[in-house]
């Protein structure tokens, strides 16, 4: 919490000079800090998905921002998988994840109500890197490496 103060003070000072500026959300930032070192945030609706590291191991964490607490995602994380990129829809139902597992990189779709994980093939073949799920959950955009170029695929989700 202490380390968040400079941001708050700066924001308040600037707010006085320049009009409204984005304000840090203190209590929620405290919750996020408690998870460890965090990266790749994805906001949608009341949800924040991110990749959180502690003790040299990273995993996907989901926070309910209205209840201000972590939400379990059983079956999403594996001890032998390295998360690369994550995204969530506004309903908090679908989570798209790029992860490295057993020497290969794959894109998977997690459905929270079913606790199911479905691999999504790259067609033509390629290596996924970064994924973003649109807020209504019906399509995702994924950055794919093919033949030395980065491309973007749009994948519809039934």
């Amino acid at each position: 919490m202490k380390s968040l103060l400079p941001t708050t003070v700066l924001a308040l000072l600037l707010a006085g000079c320049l009009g409204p500026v984005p304000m840090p959300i203190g209590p929620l930032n405290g919750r996020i800090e408690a998870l460890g070192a965090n990266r790749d945030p994805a906001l949608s609706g009341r949800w924040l998905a991110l990749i959180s590291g502690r003790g040299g191991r990273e995993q996907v964490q989901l926070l309910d921002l209205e209840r201000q607490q972590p939400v379990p995602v059983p079956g999403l994380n594996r001890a032998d998988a390295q998360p690369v990129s994550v995204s969530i829809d506004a309903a908090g139902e679908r989570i798209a994840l790029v992860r490295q597992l057993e020497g290969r990189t794959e894109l998977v779709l997690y459905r929270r109500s079913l606790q199911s994980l479905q691999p999504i093939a790259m067609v033509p073949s390629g290596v996924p890197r970064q994924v973003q799920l649109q807020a209504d959950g019906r399509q995702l955009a994924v950055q794919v490496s093919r033949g030395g170029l980065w491309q973007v695929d749009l994948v519809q989700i039934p």
Partner: protein
Amino acid sequence: MCVLAGCDAGAWLPRRNAGPAGVLSATSRQEPALSGQGRWLASVVERGGRATLLLQEQPSGRVVQLRHFQNHQPHSSPSLSWNGRYVAALVQQGNQRLPLIEDRATGALHRLPLPADRTAVRLSLAPEGRRLAVQVAQGGQWRVQLFDLSNLLEPDLPGGIALQGGGLDTPR
């Protein structure tokens, strides 16, 4: 479906390549971000050797010019609101990387100042425009911080105003 694609390869789902990056003849495209219902696609392409934000309507691929993302490259980590009203991305200002948000309905620009000891790495704009999550690097460590935008931006809700072109800018 399993038989067609192979169980190990994963499910085959309807898909398409996002296609060429408009008139920019870009060969490589990174960091895609779709608006809430997929009408707008933001991505980062090389333009004149500099990583530049590109906003396109889907599925036509029509490029829409952004008023406030013409300079301050490299751009990175774009994020869109539900109807594509707000476009957020990181830009370079001096030694720092900072988040900018463009309101395509009004042409307004919003900046997020950060203390000098940290630099932004990634961002995510909530589709409704109420919050911004920023990954910062500080003292060799990554952190994620949330910012409240409710005093700054009108909500951009599903079924809200649908921007036809580039807001106040002229479409290319």
